[in-house]
């Protein structure tokens, strides 16, 4: 019996690895089928970008069980950091990319300091509130008196493309796609390392047994801030890449529909499951795209889809939600 159990588990592991290899191979060769369609290449690139954002959100929401609703705020901070450096100071977008990560990470830590002391749903509402406030700050930063720092409502346009080995990514979609793919791979590798590091293990132990882990001296506040900051950093990097890819960044990045879409990506793909956010990103970005011709009905349909999928999709995909729920429940009582 025991032997049986082991072999089943092993085969599942093998299957997982196979699945991942297949998936990566698919992502690598995909452009060869679609290279002529700028639209498809654009959708695929957006999948990669949202995949990064969703996966960073998954890290804090799924693994650290922190009810963070402010992830788009960090995307915006990253995007604007890189965009402002590029537009106002002419700094290379590559340096901008790093600066974006650092800036979002620092802001994340600063926000985390007061917020992560709170419990459950309180964290959610405060972080959500912070991201709601950001458009106001951005518009304010775009007033003429401030040298039009942020570009206000209209945003900052004409952002420069990345230079890579002497190539300009320019408007060649396929170059952006591969750059995005490499970036996503690095992000995933980093997240994988984090969840298998001491910090990651500390979280798994906290998630599974609060009191036991605490009796071992696991300080969840400290680790929450670290992971919150790392998650913000990744979101910031994704935001910077997004800004330069789109060549424009404006406050619409913080709109509610994007918030909902990415949240659904995380939940659909599997909260607290490695790579879940990426899978969710591909599914949702694709659905969102095929609904585009429905015009003003798009969000009606999308809203209905969200309700139906979350209500009627077997909870197997989202088994980890239970754990988060337990955590939230613990915070609430």
């Amino acid at each position: 019996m025991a032997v049986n159990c082991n072999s089943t588990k092993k085969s599942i592991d093998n299957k997982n690895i196979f699945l991942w290899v297949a998936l990566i191979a698919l992502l690598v060769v995909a452009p060869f089928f679609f290279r002529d369609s700028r639209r498809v290449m654009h959708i695929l690139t957006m999948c990669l970008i949202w995949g990064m954002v969703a996966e960073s959100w998954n890290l804090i929401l799924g693994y650290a069980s922190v009810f963070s609703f402010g992830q788009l705020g960090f995307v915006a901070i990253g995007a604007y950091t890189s965009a402002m450096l590029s537009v106002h100071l002419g700094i290379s977008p590559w340096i901008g990319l790093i600066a974006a990560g650092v800036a979002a990470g620092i802001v994340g830590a600063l926000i985390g300091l007061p917020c992560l002391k709170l419990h459950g749903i309180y964290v959610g509402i405060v972080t959500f509130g912070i991201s709601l406030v950001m458009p106001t700050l951005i518009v304010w930063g775009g007033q003429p008196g401030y040298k039009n720092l942020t570009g206000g409502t209209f945003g900052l346009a004409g952002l420069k493309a990345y230079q890579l080995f002497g190539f300009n990514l320019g408007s060649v979609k396929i170059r952006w796609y591969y750059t995005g793919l490499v970036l996503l791979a690095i992000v995933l590798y980093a997240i994988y390392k984090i969840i298998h590091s001491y910090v990651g293990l500390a979280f798994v132990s906290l998630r599974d047994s609060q009191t036991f882990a605490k009796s071992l001296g696991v300080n969840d506040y400290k680790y929450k801030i670290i992971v919150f900051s790392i998650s913000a950093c990744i979101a910031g990097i994704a935001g910077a890449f997004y800004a330069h890819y789109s060549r424009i960044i404006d406050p619409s990045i913080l709109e509610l529909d994007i918030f909902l879409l990415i949240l659904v990506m995380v939940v659909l793909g599997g909260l607290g499951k490695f790579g879940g956010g990426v899978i969710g990103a591909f599914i949702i970005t694709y659905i969102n795209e095929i609904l585009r011709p429905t015009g003003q009905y798009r969000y009606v349909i999308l809203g209905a889809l969200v309700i139906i999928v979350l209500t009627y999709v077997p909870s197997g995909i989202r088994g980890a939600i239970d754990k988060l729920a337990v955590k939230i429940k613990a915070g609430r009582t």
Partner: protein
Amino acid sequence: MSTYIELLISGLVLGSIYALMSVGLTLIYGITKVLNYAQGSLFTLTAYLAFVFFSNFVSMNYFVVFFITLALMAVIGFVFEKIFIRPVRRLPGWDFTVIIVTLGTALLIDNLFLVIFGPLQKTLPRAFEGSLVLGAFRITKHNLFIIVAALLTIVILDRFLSKTRVGMSMRAVAQSSEGARIVGLDVDKVFGYSFATAGVLAGIAGILLTPRTLIYPLVGWPVFQKGLVVMVFGGLGSIKGTLYAAFILGMVEIIISYVFGARWALPVFIIILIVVLVFRPKGLAGRWQ
């Protein structure tokens, strides 16, 4: 001097609206543990409903429309829970999923408004036109009506919760859901009643405020955002705390708008909220366990 009195009145008006919105939110949260992101959509829905009534039955008395719309909102609130919330509650980990479902519902409803009514703003009549002049300052009759109606609603709600069987059963479920089952309460129904009550509260806020703001598909959204802050500020599930918070923040918003401009209200709210939560992690009236 009269400026200050007028600011005070504006603060009271705003506080009244926030009170109605956030008491609904906190009632739902306290009883059903659902963070209802669609509460703003219920606000908007009421406004459109009232608009439809007023534009189709022009001669109808304001208060007839007022109460018909609210009665409809009670039914809609009940059905809302049945359709969108109840199926999710059967799932494991529902208290997180349900937030996203209510968000999806908000997206659905708000965009339906856009499809049905278009992006153009609609107008709603006021309860009373004109204004009262009392010595050095004046108050529009509609503003006075907002304050009176909100206070009356809160008094009625208090009576309802403390004296009627349905109201008591709602409190019972909030305090101990296991205890509620033991005494044989139909918890599903009580959840439905809570959403019905919250629907009416959002509805009153909607009918009262939209004559001033005009109606458009997202009109409920900013009110909901601030209601959310008010709810947390007051302490989740505490009606008393929420009322204090609503009038404090209503006042703050008027002062901030007067001094710096309206768009700074929410940023200041968030700062106040964070500062308060640092010292009182469960809000003004929340119990720290």
